[in-house]
């Protein structure tokens, strides 16, 4: 008595790698543009800014990656992935070619508080390759259909060196736009670099964005987050107006396997987006 294939919450949807862009000079950060193989999957996949999906490489494993494309980008989904030498999945992804098929399941998690951000100034602070979901958010907000909902946009984004900056062409494009103030910085410049030098927390203090009627989204490596929280609080941002994204190792992505527990919450289901206030309440919540 065969029951037929169950609708399984664990099985990925097949996608083709349509385009691979190498983002940095070191070559270990690549953006993968993925197209769904099945029409229904393409139609069903609707994500919000800040969500993530689980990339599945057959023969290697799975990995949760933040979605880097805007919810308004049709027909494809983008992910920017860093290759870790010890990472089985990231290494497999980086060895793949355009035209290869992999799997995606999701979108999972909660999103940035887009509704709460309407009518407010939005400050975006990003460091290193944690900038991916912030980039999705900036693209979404800058779209004609959305721009009017938000007030002024301030972006402070830093990388270790000029070669490490992601989405370089977009950064340039946004530099010239009205209504968005870009402050791109590097920890250490090189001969060609004519821009800012300085750590993100330092630049944040220099720029000193106003906390009046503002929400700040901040994503970065643990050490950057540690040194950014204090300046933000000093600038007058209330703990529930500082929004960040937590990272933990994951397995199921659907709040069952226990691996990404932080306090009573699952980073995959109740997060990854948490406010600073929520993070404080989750005693294990430091990044």
């Amino acid at each position, binding site marked *: 008595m065969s029951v037929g294939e169950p609708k399984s919450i*664990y099985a990925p949807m097949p996608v083709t790698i349509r385009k691979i862009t190498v983002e940095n000079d070191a070559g270990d950060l690549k953006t993968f543009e993925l197209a769904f193989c099945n029409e229904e999957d393409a139609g069903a996949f609707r994500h919000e800014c800040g969500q993530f999906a689980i990339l599945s490489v057959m023969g290697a494993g799975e990995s949760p990656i933040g979605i880097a494309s805007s919810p308004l980008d049709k027909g494809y989904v983008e992910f920017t992935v860093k290759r870790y030498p010890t990472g089985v999945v990231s290494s497999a992804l980086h060895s793949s070619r355009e035209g290869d098929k992999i*799997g995606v399941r999701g979108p999972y998690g909660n999103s940035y508080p887009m509704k709460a951000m309407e009518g407010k100034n939005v400050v975006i602070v990003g460091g290193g390759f944690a900038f991916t979901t912030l980039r999705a958010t900036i693209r979404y907000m800058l779209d004609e259909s959305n721009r009017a909902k938000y007030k002024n946009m301030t972006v402070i984004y830093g990388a270790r060196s000029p070669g490490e900056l992601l989405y370089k062409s977009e950064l340039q494009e946004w530099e010239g736009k009205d209504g968005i103030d870009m402050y791109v910085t590097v920890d250490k410049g090189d001969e060609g670099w004519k821009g800012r030098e300085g750590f993100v927390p330092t630049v944040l203090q220099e720029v000193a964005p106003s906390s009046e009627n503002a929400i700040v989204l901040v994503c970065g490596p643990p050490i950057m987050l540690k040194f950014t929280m204090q300046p933000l609080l000093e600038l007058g941002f209330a703990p529930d107006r500082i929004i960040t994204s937590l990272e933990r190792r994951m397995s199921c992505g*659907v709040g069952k396997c226990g691996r990404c527990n932080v306090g009573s919450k699952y980073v995959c289901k109740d997060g990854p987006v948490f406010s600073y206030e929520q993070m404080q309440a989750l005693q294990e919540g430091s990044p």
Partner: protein
Amino acid sequence: MARGSMKKADFPKLVAAASENAAFVAPVDGPSGAEFAVIGPQDDVLFDFGNTKLPVKRHFFPQSEVLYQYANDEVRSAPLPEGKTILFGVRPCDVRSLLQLDKVFLDEAYVDPYYRERRENTLVISLACKDPAEPCFCTSVGCGPAAREGSDAIVFDLGDDLLFEAVSEKGEEFIRSQAETLSEPEAELVEKAEKAAAEAEAKLPKIEVEGIAEKLPGIFDSPVWQSIADRCLSCGICTFVCPTCHCFGIHDEKADEGGQRIRVQDGCMFLGFTVEASGHNPRILSGQRMRQRIMHKFRYTVENFSEIFCVGCGRCISSCPVNIDVRETIAEVMR
């Protein structure tokens, strides 16, 4: 509420009749102690045992199972498990653990189809405890040697007699379907069962856990966690023998042509459970892992499901190679 009684010596007849439409799984003596196995009328079923070495969760959430297979760029989800099962002889603590695991695996947002199928196709007949022994403490965490919640029927071992009592509709149906072997019990048998249950309950210690969920956040940063976990070997046995532990990992298994993804039981007490690709491990110290285990079972699940995820079966206490005793940990926390 239907009841039925029979002579223990006639048990093989019940097994024979019930096995016609379902696999009959019952406790037997195994190489490592009491364990559940599919039996036939000729097999010796255990009635006199403390508890099975491994918890009953394995019947619904196996040690490892295939989630899906992949080949030629196609993914095929594993088929649903087939067949009905009668799970006999489950201790009330293990039954209670199923109700708790239901809250995780049958969460409406994402229902685990394999777990659900097994749950729906299994009749759970529990066996009341006559002689609870150290280190059981089920009554302290809302369970009891004759607790009925969660089973379809409960059985009392009264020496030469067995008394069946239906708890759910499915249990009623089962008892009625076994009219050939089960007969209306004498009133004194029912009395004997109630007395045995009360006696068993009196034997169990009372461990104070009232308010533990509220106490825990206050001692999050306490050095007590590391001092409890100093001797912990991070062997993970506690998570494997625990009826409510449900952490798992998803692994890729490549074959020559295609491969599969399997789900494997895992445990938060292992050093590498939370290690990230960058090498960073938020719970690198055994004290942090111990804290997570206790917090998860005695506070986080209370927050999320209003339940302490511990059924007082005592397996972790008897299995720990360095005698880390959750009763002592609870007492330490309550102080």
